[in-house]
């Protein structure tokens, strides 16, 4: 694509003929802004041939209105005053294309998000602002030029980051569609948080029983390459051609030799707390996190290992390699699914509940490990203080969720249900036990959830007490716990003595989300989770084309929603690969050679190595230019420009923002 080429008939040979369309958006805009007045005003602006207002410009008839006017009135520029261009620019670009006009000849004036919705009580000022915004848009539209989207080939391989149930599901779906998948997981095994759970609500499936077959499927799949104990270090490129550097940490055990027999762990003399059991049990310095780990390969914990050589001595297949070094892999992928999951709120941040100080205050996930047959107690729930079976148990919900003070105003969405599930599990084994659930509201929104909750009340005799406990106090002798709570339904303060308290601590963004955000240039919403491109219409896309979100990294959700979203993300990630090529943004730098003096300032300003000097003039490599505009801002002569954001276009907007058009006067004199 050359500098001035790409201009077509509409732009080159004719004066701008602009159509302006002011959208009512029902009452969203028209309820505040006098849209008729804005349209009338627009009709007097220079080069404006036609100006109309209409109820819903984005609707089919609204788009048709524009398309017919383009044909009948030979319009060659369109201004739509409506919502944010981030919402519907794409819609109108398509409408223009269908009418035979280049997609980039439309300009939007944001009179909804930036006007009617934020100045609701100032209709007069909002109408004036709308006129200004339309005038600015018309000024820019006059100078718009056709642009052509370059096409790039898309690699038929994907990266899935995170080996929990979301990542596994996305990887399996993509692999089944025939694409090569690199499934990268930070810990030594796939499985994620789901592998730590005992049973799942409301079906009471054993979590491992439904998860491990999927893990094995992923391991066996010919299109999936599992890379565990590994983290992404660098990401370059764009949709279609991402280059990802992955550091695979040395586990000091050779993956292709280890048979997972476990003799090494038996021989290892070092015991450390097992993070898989949240420190409730122990593991060796050479370990697999849990028996069904995938890959079933042992890992030496560098920090714990004494280097005694016992494991090496007993290993038949000679898989131990103390000298093993980290390996850096370079992957080339077309699309990426981020499925990095969540971390749990540190319950110590609510000191009033005594977690970390009182032995018999535990968290939900610790409860899961303690009742799990493969857990540290072999599935027997025993009080940490004395190893006795608890008779009276209380579950406290919303620990760090729906809690402004803790910084988490949101609902974690799973705590009501898993706490009810855990309460039921215990009552099933110990019908004589007394079980309390302290709640603010019970959120049982899923399929079969409300029924599950009602059964817990009616058939299991679990006592639900509506109130957020003020504090938990320990009796230093018995280590029993006194929960102080106001039952808000009875308006009565209560003190309840319990043997064990289980805290439903919140789901929080994974601790390394900031790092992942930066690596993949994602955004995060106010709650800290990764932001989707649109909450309703693009729930698994990100603002970075070619990167999609699956599971709890996007927000708290339960397993069914996580798996559904993971399949959705896989489907989205497959589209560009199935198509084989994608159109990329034409918003890149270009050089007006006649103005270039060869000073090389642009070359030094560019962080991406896009600019080189050819015959002492700057030249842009459009394929790698990202269009940030740093070079154009630095250029002393105006030679360096950005397509669709040229100096002239921006200056025209500044002028139009500050004053009424001279053109209005001119038009009236001429008219």
């Amino acid at each position, binding site marked *: 694509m050359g500098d001035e080429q790409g201009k077509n008939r509409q732009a080159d040979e004719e004066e701008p003929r602009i159509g302006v369309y002011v959208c009512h958006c029902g009452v969203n805009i028209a309820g505040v802004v006098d849209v008729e007045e804005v349209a009338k005003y627009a009709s007097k602006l220079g080069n404006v041939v036609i100006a109309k207002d209409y109820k819903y410009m984005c609707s089919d008839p609204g788009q048709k209105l524009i398309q017919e006017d383009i044909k009948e009135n030979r319009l060659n520029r369109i201004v739509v005053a409506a919502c944010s261009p981030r919402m519907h620019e794409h819609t109108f670009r398509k409408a223009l294309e269908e009418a035979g006009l280049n997609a980039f000849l439309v300009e939007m004036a944001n009179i909804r998000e930036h006007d009617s919705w934020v100045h609701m009580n100032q209709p007069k000022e909002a109408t004036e602002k709308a006129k200004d915004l339309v005038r600015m848009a018309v000024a820019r539209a006059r100078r718009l030029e056709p642009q052509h989207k370059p096409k790039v080939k898309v690699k038929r391989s994907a990266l899935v980051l995170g080996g929990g149930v979301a990542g596994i599901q996305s990887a399996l779906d993509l692999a089944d569609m025939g694409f090569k998948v690199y499934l990268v997981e930070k810990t030594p095994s796939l499985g994620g948080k789901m592998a730590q759970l005992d049973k799942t609500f409301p079906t009471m499936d054993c979590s491992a029983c439904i998860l491990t077959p999927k893990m094995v499927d992923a391991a066996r799949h010919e299109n999936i390459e599992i890379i565990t104990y590994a983290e992404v270090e660098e990401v370059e490129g764009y949709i279609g051609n991402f280059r990802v550097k992955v550091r695979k940490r040395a586990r000091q055990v050779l993956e292709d030799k280890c048979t997972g027999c476990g003799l090494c762990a038996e021989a290892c003399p070092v015991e450390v707390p097992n993070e898989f059991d949240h420190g409730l049990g122990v593991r060796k310095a050479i370990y697999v996190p849990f028996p069904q780990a995938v890959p079933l390969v042992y890992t030496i914990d560098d920090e714990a290992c004494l280097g005694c050589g016992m494991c090496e001595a007993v290993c038949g297949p000679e898989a131990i390699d103390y000298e093993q070094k980290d390996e850096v892999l370079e992957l080339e992928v077309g699309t990426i699914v981020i499925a990095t999951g969540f971390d749990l709120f540190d319950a110590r941040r609510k000191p009033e509940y005594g977690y970390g100080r009182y032995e018999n205050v535990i968290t939900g996930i610790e409860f899961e490990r303690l009742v799990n047959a493969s857990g540290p107690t072999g599935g027997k729930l025993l009080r940490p203080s004395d190893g006795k079976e608890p008779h009276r148990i209380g579950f406290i919900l919303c620990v760090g969720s729906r809690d402004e003070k803790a910084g988490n105003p949101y609902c974690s969405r799973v705590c009501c249900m898993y706490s009810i599930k855990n309460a039921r599990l215990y009552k099933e084994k110990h019908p004589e036990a007394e079980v309390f659930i302290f709640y603010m509201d019970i959120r049982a929104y899923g399929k079969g959830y409300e029924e599950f909750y009602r059964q817990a009340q009616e058939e299991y005799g679990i006592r639900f007490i509506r109130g957020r406990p003020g504090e938990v106090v320990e009796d230093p002798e018995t280590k029993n716990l006194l929960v102080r709570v106001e039952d808000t339904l009875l308006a009565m303060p209560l003190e309840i003595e319990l043997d064990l308290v289980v805290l439903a601590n919140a789901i929080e963004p994974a601790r390394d989300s900031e790092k992942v955000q930066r690596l993949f*240039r994602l955004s*995060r919403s106010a709650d800290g989770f990764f932001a989707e491109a649109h909450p309703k219409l693009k729930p698994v896309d990100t603002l970075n084309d070619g990167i999609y979100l699956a599971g709890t990294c996007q927000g708290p959700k339960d397993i069914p929603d996580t798996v559904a979203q993971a399949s959705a993300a896989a489907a989205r990630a497959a589209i560009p690969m199935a198509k084989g090529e994608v159109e990329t943004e034409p918003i890149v730098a270009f050089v007006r050679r006649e103005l270039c003096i060869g000073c090389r300032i642009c070359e030094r300003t560019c962080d991406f190595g896009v600019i080189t000097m050819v015959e002492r003039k700057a030249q842009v490599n459009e394929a790698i230019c990202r269009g940030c505009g740093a070079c154009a801002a630095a250029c002393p002569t105006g030679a360096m420009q950005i397509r669709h954001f040229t100096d002239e276009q921006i200056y025209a907007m500044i002028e139009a923002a*500050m004053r009424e058009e001279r053109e209005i006067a001119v038009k009236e004199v001429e008219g």
Partner: protein
Amino acid sequence: MSEFEPKIIAFMCNWCSYAGGDLAGTSRLQYPPNARIIRLMCTARLDPAFVLKAFAEGADGVLVAGCHIGDCHYVSGNLKAEKRVQMLKKLLPELGIEPERLMLRWISAAEGERFASTMKEFVEIIKKLGPSPLRGAAK
């Protein structure tokens, strides 16, 4: 002074601050209607001459808003904008313009409230300063 309504030009990046403005809208956060926003893909595109042009046209204030440091869609575009704004702040007094009339803010796509409060704050600052000394010079 109470009748003075400042005219403000705001340059905002597409990915963070402009989106933050959209969020302020969908959240129905109310703020004064003084600013006219010009969307750039990145604040790196901000030619210092754009700011000077806005003042020359009589703007009472210029707001530049981009992604937080480290969050730039183009890695370091906002750092470049920051340097240019610092340079402009030194230059403006030479032209008789108070440097407070130029504000740089990092506003993320999630910070609708920060967007609205920035608008309120900046309008207040400019109201206190009064009309730009260059107002009317352009006409």
